[in-house]
C-alpha cells in the first residue's frame, strides 16, 4: 500500500534566532492506518502536526524536509490548493475545543459554513449537518445547532469539533491531544466514537498525545518523540511489549500499572528532557540514559530502518521476543 502521508527529514526552527525545535522528523502513514505520536510536552508534537497543514505559528518555520500527502508536496503548494486540502482532505482536532469554535456563532452555522466554504455539494446541508451531530453522539441535535459553544460542556464541544472535522469526509484526521483536557469517562466516550468513525470511513489518523495508555489501545503504529526527534517507531505491540530505545523503555517502566496487583517502586528517569536546540551532534537522551557509551555523546544516532520497526539508538535494548 502506498503512503498517504509522509514527512521526510522535516526540521523546524525559530525564524529569528534559528533555534532548532524539531529535527529530521520522518514519519509515514499508509491509507487507513492510525499512527500515534507520543512524547512529553515540548518534544515537538504540536509543531509537527501544524507543519503538515501549513499552520505553523509566526516565528517558526520549516527549514528543510518534505511533506508528501497523496502525491503532492504540501510545502510547495499554492495557498489556494492548500486551503482546499485543509478541512476537505486533512482535518484537525485540537486539545482545547474552545479555541476551535467561534464563540459568537452558533454551532449549526459554523458547521454549515464549513460546507459552504468548500462548496460541498449536498442536497440538504441542514440535514447533513444534523446527521453529523447525531453520528458523534450529541443528543438533541436540533437544540445543539442553535447553541453557542459556551453552552456546551467540554466533552460536548469536543464532539462538535469532531463532527465539524468529519463533515467533509477527510482522508486524514490529525488529532492533537484531543482528550487531554477531558475526564477519563468522557475520554473513553470520545475514543470509542473516534475509533468507530475511523473504521466506518476507512479514515487515516494521526493521533498525538502524551498518554501512553490511550495510544496503546487506539492506534496501529507508534512514533516516540523526544527533544524534537523521533527516537523509535514500530507497531503498537512492538513499542509497548518490547521497546528498544532506552527512553521508551524508561517511560513505560515509570508508569504505574493500573491493572497489576503489586505496587513496586516506579522506575524513574533522572533529569529532564533537554532543549532540542542545545543537543547538537549527540544522542539527545545520552545525559539521562543508563546505558550511555562514549559514542552516544560523540555522534547522533539516526532512525535505522529494519522492517516496520526502527530505533535511533546505537545500543538498542535487545527485543525480548
Amino acid at each position: 500500500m502506498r503512503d498517504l502521508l509522509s514527512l521526510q527529514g522535516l526540521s523546524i526552527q525559530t525564524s529569528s534566532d534559528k533555534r532548532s525545535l524539531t529535527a529530521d522528523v520522518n514519519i509515514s502513514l499508509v491509507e487507513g492506518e492510525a499512527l500515534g505520536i507520543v512524547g512529553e510536552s515540548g518534544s515537538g508534537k504540536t509543531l509537527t502536526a501544524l507543519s503538515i497543514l501549513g499552520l505553523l505559528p509566526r516565528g517558526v518555520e520549516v527549514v528543510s524536509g518534505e511533506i508528501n500527502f497523496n502525491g503532492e508536496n504540501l510545502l510547495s503548494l499554492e495557498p489556494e490548493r492548500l486551503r482546499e486540502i485543509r478541512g476537505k482532505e486533512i482535518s484537525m482536532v485540537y486539545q482545547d475545543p474552545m479555541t476551535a469554535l467561534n464563540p459568537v456563532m452558533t454551532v449549526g452555522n459554523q458547521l454549515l459554513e464549513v460546507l459552504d466554504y468548500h462548496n460541498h455539494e449536498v442536497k440538504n446541508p441542514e440535514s447533513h449537518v444534523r446527521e453529523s451531530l447525531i453520528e458523534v453522539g450529541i443528543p438533541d441535535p436540533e437544540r445543539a445547532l442553535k447553541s453557542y459553544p459556551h453552552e456546551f460542556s467540554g466533552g460536548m464541544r469536543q464532539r462538535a469539533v469532531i463532527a465539524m472535522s468529519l463533515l467533509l469526509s477527510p482522508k486524514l484526521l490529525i488529532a492533537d491531544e484531543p482528550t487531554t483536557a477531558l475526564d477519563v469517562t468522557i475520554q473513553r466516550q470520545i475514543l470509542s466514537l473516534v475509533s468507530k468513525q475511523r473504521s466506518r470511513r476507512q479514515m487515516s489518523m494521526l493521533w498525538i498525545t502524551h498518554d501512553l495508555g490511550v495510544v496503546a489501545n487506539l492506534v496501529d503504529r507508534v512514533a516516540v518523540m523526544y527533544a524534537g526527534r523521533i527516537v523509535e517507531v514500530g507497531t503498537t505491540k512492538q513499542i509497548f511489549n518490547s521497546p528498544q530505545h532506552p527512553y521508551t523503555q524508561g517511560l513505560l517502566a515509570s508508569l504505574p500499572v493500573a491493572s497489576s496487583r503489586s505496587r513496586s517502586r516506579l522506575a524513574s528517569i533522572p533529569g529532564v528532557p533537554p532543549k532540542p536546540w542545545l543537543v547538537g551532534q549527540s544522542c539527545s537522551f545520552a545525559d539521562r540514559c543508563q546505558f550511555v557509551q562514549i559514542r552516544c555523546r560523540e555522534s547522533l544516532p539516526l532512525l535505522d530502518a529494519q522492517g516496520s520497526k526502527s530505533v535511533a539508538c546505537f545500543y538498542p535494548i535487545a527485543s525480548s521476543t
Partner: protein
Amino acid sequence: MTLVIDNVFKKYPIRQSKTVVNALNGISLNISKGQTLGIVGESGCGKSTLARLIVGLESPTQGAITWRDNVLLRGSKNQWRNHLSPAQLVFQDPYSSLNPRQRIGECIREVISAHNLRKKEEIDSRVTELLKVVGISEDMKNRYPHQLSGGQRQRVSIARALAAEPELIILDEPVSALDVSVRADVMNLLVDLRKEFGLTYLFISHDLSMVRHISDVIAVMYLGRVVELGTWDEVLDNPQHPYTKALIAAIPDHSQVGQMDLTVSLEGEVPSPTNIPLGCAFHVRCPIAVPNCSKMIPQLLPIKSSQSVACSEVVK
C-alpha cells in the same frame, strides 16, 4: 491523631445567576495517623474544595472538620487564621505555588522563622536538611523558582510543607502537571518520605493509577459525596459501586496493548453541581438504577469490615 470530616457541605452562591454550586454534599471521612487516604474523582467533584476546607482556607457551609486526640480542637470559622495549620497543602501547579520573587531557601526558612520552630542558629542547617530530604542540593538554595524544573519546584513545595511539621500533608494532584518521565520521581519521593518520617497523606488525584500506587485506603467521590470507600486493593480489584466500576473500566491501560474494550462504559456526563439530581446523584447515568434511586440519597454502608458503598442496589 485522627482527622474527622463529618457530614460536610460546601455551597458557593453565584450572585449573577442566583444559583448555588453544591461542591460538597454531606461528605464524611476519617484519616488516621500514618495512613494515606487517596481521593479519586472526576474534575469538579469537590476534591480541591475539601482540601481547602481541611486546611482552613474556607469554612464549611455545614458540618464539622475536627482533629481528635492530641491536636487542638477549634471552631470552624477561619479556624487557622494566623496560626500554623496542622494540615499543609501541596498544590497541583508548580508554577503558581512558589513566590516567583523569593529564593527557594528563603521560602523554606520563612516557615521556620515566622513560627520560631527552631532556634536561630539551627535554622540554616534545618533549611539545608529539608532541601536535602526532598532531593534538592544545598547549592540551589539561592535560586528563584523559575530557575527550577517543574519537578524540582514540586519538591520545594513538599519541603515547605514538611518545614511546618504538619500532622497531615494534603497532596492535591501533586504530579498531574508534571511530565510523564518526572512523575515517577516525585511519586517515589512521596513514598520514601512517608516511610522515613511516618507521614500522613491525603492524596488527591483524578488519576486512579496514581492513587492506587500510593494509597492505603481509597475514597471514590462523585458530585461532592463519597460513593465507595475501601482499601486500595478492594476498591480496584473488587469495585462495587457502578460508578467505581465505570471509572476503572475507562482508564486506558498501557500494559494491555489493544485489549481495551472501546465500547462505552458510561453514557452521558456528570450533571452540573448547581443542579444535582434528587436521590442518588448518579442514578441518571447508572446502568443498574431502579425507580427508587431518585427518591433517597443512599448512605455509605459497609459491605465488609473495610469496604463501604453508597448504593441501595448493591447494599440490600
